[in-house]
């Protein structure tokens, strides 16, 4: 099963204290930010600090992403060059459009060639935050084999569209749906836009649940206090997990009896239901909701 990315937590790239504590904040992934969180006169300082941290500091099991500056700015290529020397898990490419991803891909390929074909381990995430980015999301996802996901940026997207951002989020509904579906088609993660009202925990929980229902695999966080709430929003429903366990149990019994098709609670169970049940149980195992060793025999939630 792929790595969990329920939360990607932004951490300012020029703040040593926050970088040091990034791995204990509970997020599946942290984003060390060299872009919006860093003023123009501190770009060099943040780049150096993040480079040194990636060389020396242990982020333990937390996945580390670095958001570089747009590749079209003077800072973007400098960031990319520095990050390729230390190779974080992921590079988040802002203002992602086909041309910018192709440019990054081409620079990484050139770096690999210059190092005698040594493969860069770093994967890419496209930060889609413009109307063009949303409309051409499929083409963007085809622009580099290193892409592992998309992070949708609702604030810049609505700014580009010239529309107001609202609590209900109607103005980003189309973009969210399009990004989530495109990511599913390409088999990559879809991470939803941050919820910017950091004190509105109920609103965040509802928004996280909505994102999950749309098909997002996670949500960006801009404050450590948001992490637990987002995880709650993305946790599988225990009722659904129990049903999934029963589906797998019934499937085992049907297989033992040589039945190709079987029913559960009066409803026929077919391949898509079994597949969904397997995914649900695998996720529940990963989150410690069920015991991995005896899932199919006992079917009990932890």
């Amino acid at each position, binding site marked *: 099963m792929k790595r969990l990315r329920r939360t990607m937590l932004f951490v300012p790239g020029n*703040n*040593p*204290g926050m970088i*040091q504590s990034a791995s204990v904040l509970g997020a599946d992934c942290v984003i060390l930010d060299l872009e919006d969180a860093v003023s123009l006169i501190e*770009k*060099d*300082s943040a780049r*150096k*600090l993040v*480079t*040194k*941290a990636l*060389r*020396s*500091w242990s982020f333990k099991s937390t996945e580390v992403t670095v958001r570089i500056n747009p590749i079209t700015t*003077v*800072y973007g290529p*400098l960031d990319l060059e520095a990050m390729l020397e230390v190779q974080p898990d992921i590079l988040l490419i802002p203002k992602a459009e086909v041309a910018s991803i192709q440019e990054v891909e081409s620079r990484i390929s050139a770096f690999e060639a210059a190092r005698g074909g040594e493969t860069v381990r770093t994967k890419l995430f496209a930060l889609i935050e413009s109307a063009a980015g949303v409309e051409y999301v499929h083409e963007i996802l085809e622009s580099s084999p290193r892409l592992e996901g998309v992070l949708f940026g609702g604030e810049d997207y609505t700014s580009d569209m010239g529309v107001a951002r609202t609590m209900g989020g109607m103005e980003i509904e189309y973009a969210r749906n399009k990004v989530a579906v495109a990511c599913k088609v390409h088999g990559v993660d879809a991470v939803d836009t941050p919820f910017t009202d950091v004190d509105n925990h109920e609103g965040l929980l509802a928004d996280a649940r909505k994102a999950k229902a749309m098909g997002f695999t996670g949500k960006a966080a801009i404050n450590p206090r948001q992490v637990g709430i987002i995880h709650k929003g993305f946790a599988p429903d225990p009722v659904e997990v129990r049903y999934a366990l029963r589906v797998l149990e019934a499937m085992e019994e049907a297989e033992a009896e040589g039945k190709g098709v079987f029913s559960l609670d009066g409803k026929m169970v077919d391949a898509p239901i079994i597949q969904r049940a397997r995914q649900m149980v695998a996720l529940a195992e990963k989150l410690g909701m069920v015991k991995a060793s005896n899932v199919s025999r006992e079917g009990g939630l932890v």
Partner: protein
Amino acid sequence: MRVTRTAKAGTLESNDIFIMVSPSEAEGVNLELQSIVLAQFGRQIRDTILRTVAARGVTQVSIMAQDRGALDYTIEARVETALDRALAEPGVIL
């Protein structure tokens, strides 16, 4: 190599270190260090700063360092940034 311009890096926030490098009249590295953990880690901080300066090839500079509990890699990053800023050609974007 001599530092001929004054430059700064870092902050006075917790876990950070503020570094100011400036031209020195005398040969060598003239380091003035203040730290909230001077008694426990003064020697280590001083060594890290001097090692970083030497690695950059700088032999004549005055350094004022105000430490707020920075780890070694943060100290290295801030010293290198201050030196890069001091030694950069005018107009070069770092």
